[in-house]
């Protein structure tokens, strides 16, 4: 039964049947074999979608799109440029830092990549960066979009594994910081060796003046994460309510303050966000019936048992998890992977004594690397389109970035305090 379920899923995946359809259809085959009425599928689908917490997904997607249109990204780039643009490899560092800023507003990685790439890839090229290197910078720093809160991946993990989304959000901060800093370090080393993007003149008084102007200009954009995340931790609202506040705030800034969203832009933004949401949520919906069959067949239990028989060491377990998620991430879209894998592995992780919040961060960070690994990686697609290059042209510089990102995954996996310290401060 279970082998039929997995084999049919795999075959459907391989022949490029949509992920949502593959999940639903293989479940229908399994239900029929077991003689369970197919209406179970509808029950599972509606139970999974009928969730108030899930509403954070459409709202954070919409907020991200409003922000992208509303002129916030260029102000953030400007600020980052003043802050770190003058160091060696500074513009690459600007890309990373802007990604970190933008990540506090957006729940998605592809949006983050696009928001910074469209301005910074051409700018980097002007400063002597090879174009493929510039694209690799944007693609890899874009993954911070789902690691620094808010994060759609974390919302979905929280729902699937029944972990507090608020705790996951705050747990993502330090890992995000680690990844951001390690990427900046890599870029400045490469810039030093290859001699591009040399230091521009630096005058302290001039710099402070520019910093003040850039800060003033981007103040309202910077205020947003403070309202959203501060609001969650100050007890003003839940993560779901925070997402709707983000929408209202992003709309307000884009239309009233920066005046870059006109009324005629609104419907296209809404429709884009709706489609993006629906496509993700259909996977959530049909994965729920798949997960239901797995539970009925007690698959998580058996997986846990066989891993435990193989080794009782949490380190060995995590190495297996890292490997499996890396391979999955190469071929599969991040959210779909989380939805399918989290219900199987999260209970096992708890058995191994791993904190569920920490495990969530491991999954999100590990699968986020998948957005930058060929053949299937949404950040790569976005960066390549903006840079107007082919994916294979990106391969050489990408190897360096992947090396650093994988190192980060290991650090985040085996140093739990990076993920658990901030949530513990709330107690």
């Amino acid at each position: 039964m279970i082998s039929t379920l997995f084999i049919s899923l795999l075959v459907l995946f391989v022949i490029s049947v949509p992920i949502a359809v593959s999940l639903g259809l293989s479940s229908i085959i399994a239900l029929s074999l077991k003689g369970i009425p197919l209406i179970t599928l509808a029950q599972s689908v509606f139970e999974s979608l009928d969730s108030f917490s899930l509403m954070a997904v459409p709202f954070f997607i919409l907020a991200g799109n409003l922000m992208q249109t509303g002129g916030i990204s260029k102000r953030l780039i400007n600020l980052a440029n003043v802050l770190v643009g003058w160091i060696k490899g500074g513009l690459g560092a600007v890309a990373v830092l802007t990604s970190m800023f933008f990540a506090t507003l957006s729940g998605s990685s592809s949006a983050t990549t696009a928001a910074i790439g469209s301005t910074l890839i051409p700018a980097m090229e002007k400063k002597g960066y090879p174009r493929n290197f510039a694209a690799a910078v944007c693609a890899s720093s874009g993954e911070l979009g789902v690691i620094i809160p808010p994060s759609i991946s974390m919302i979905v993990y929280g729902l699937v594994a029944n972990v507090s989304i608020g705790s996951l959000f705050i747990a993502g901060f330090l890992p995000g910081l680690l990844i951001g800093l390690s990427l900046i370090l890599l870029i400045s080393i490469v810039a030093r060796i290859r001699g591009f993007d040399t230091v521009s003149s630096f005058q302290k008084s001039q710099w402070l003046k520019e910093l003040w102007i850039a800060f003033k200009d981007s103040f309202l954009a910077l205020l947003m994460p403070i309202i959203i995340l501060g609001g969650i931790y100050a007890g003003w609202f839940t993560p779901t309510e925070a997402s709707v506040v983000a929408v209202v705030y992003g709309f307000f800034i884009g239309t009233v303050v920066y005046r870059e969203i006109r009324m005629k832009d609104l419907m296209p933004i809404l429709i884009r966000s709706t489609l993006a949401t629906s496509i993700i949520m259909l996977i959530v919906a049909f994965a729920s019936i798949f997960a239901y069959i797995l539970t009925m067949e007690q698959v998580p239990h058996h997986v846990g048992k066989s891993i435990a028989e193989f080794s009782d060491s949490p380190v060995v377990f995590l190495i297996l998890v890292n490997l499996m998620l890396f391979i999955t991430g190469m071929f599969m879209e991040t959210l779909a992977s989380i939805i399918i894998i989290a219900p199987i592995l999260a209970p096992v992780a708890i058995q191994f004594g791993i904190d569920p919040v920490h495990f969530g961060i491991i999954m999100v960070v590990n699968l986020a690397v998948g957005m930058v690994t060929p053949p299937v990686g949404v950040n790569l697609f976005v960066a390549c389109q903006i840079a107007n290059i082919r994916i294979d042209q990106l391969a050489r510089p990408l190897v360096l970035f992947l090396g650093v990102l994988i190192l980060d995954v290991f650090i985040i996996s085996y140093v739990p305090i990076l993920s658990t310290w901030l949530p513990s401060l709330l107690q």
Partner: protein
Amino acid sequence: MQFINFVDKFNRILEILAGIAVIVMTLVVFLQVIVRFGLTAIGWDLSVPWTEELARYLMIWVIFIGGAIATRKGKLIAVEALVVALPALPGKLIKFVSHIVSLVFYAIIFTIGLEWAKFGLSETAPVMKFPMVYVYSALVVSAGIMILNTISFLLEIFIKKIDIREASVDEEVEDALAEYKNKGEGVTQ
């Protein structure tokens, strides 16, 4: 072709309806925040238990309608690695088979959806007290539109002689690039 034009107009209407539903969702949930966070602070106690329920049910409709619209351009996320790696003929053939498999799936969902909508007659919404058929019928409606849209998608490919492997649009990439394409920024060769 007239049929495809009609389908596209129909999808356009659905898009706008979904967009409006998202606006209502936003307003309703925002109201809930205002009521608890804002009005309580000024000593005005009010509760709006219907906000959560209404927003949830709207979201369900938006997802099913949005998902159905996405099938018009083959936008549902799929693993394309094999299709791209294979030579043209087997690649195209497999891609075509995958669309037919999807059609079969939508047809099964349509029948399940009918039964489910009927089941909805025997349940009521906990707060707003209307029969759940108003929510549950989203499934059958969505499956119906998916069938219509997938047929249009295949017809269009056939008529315009488009390479079926390249006909699908990756919505997430499109979405991320929408703004950049709008402004025509970026790199040119």
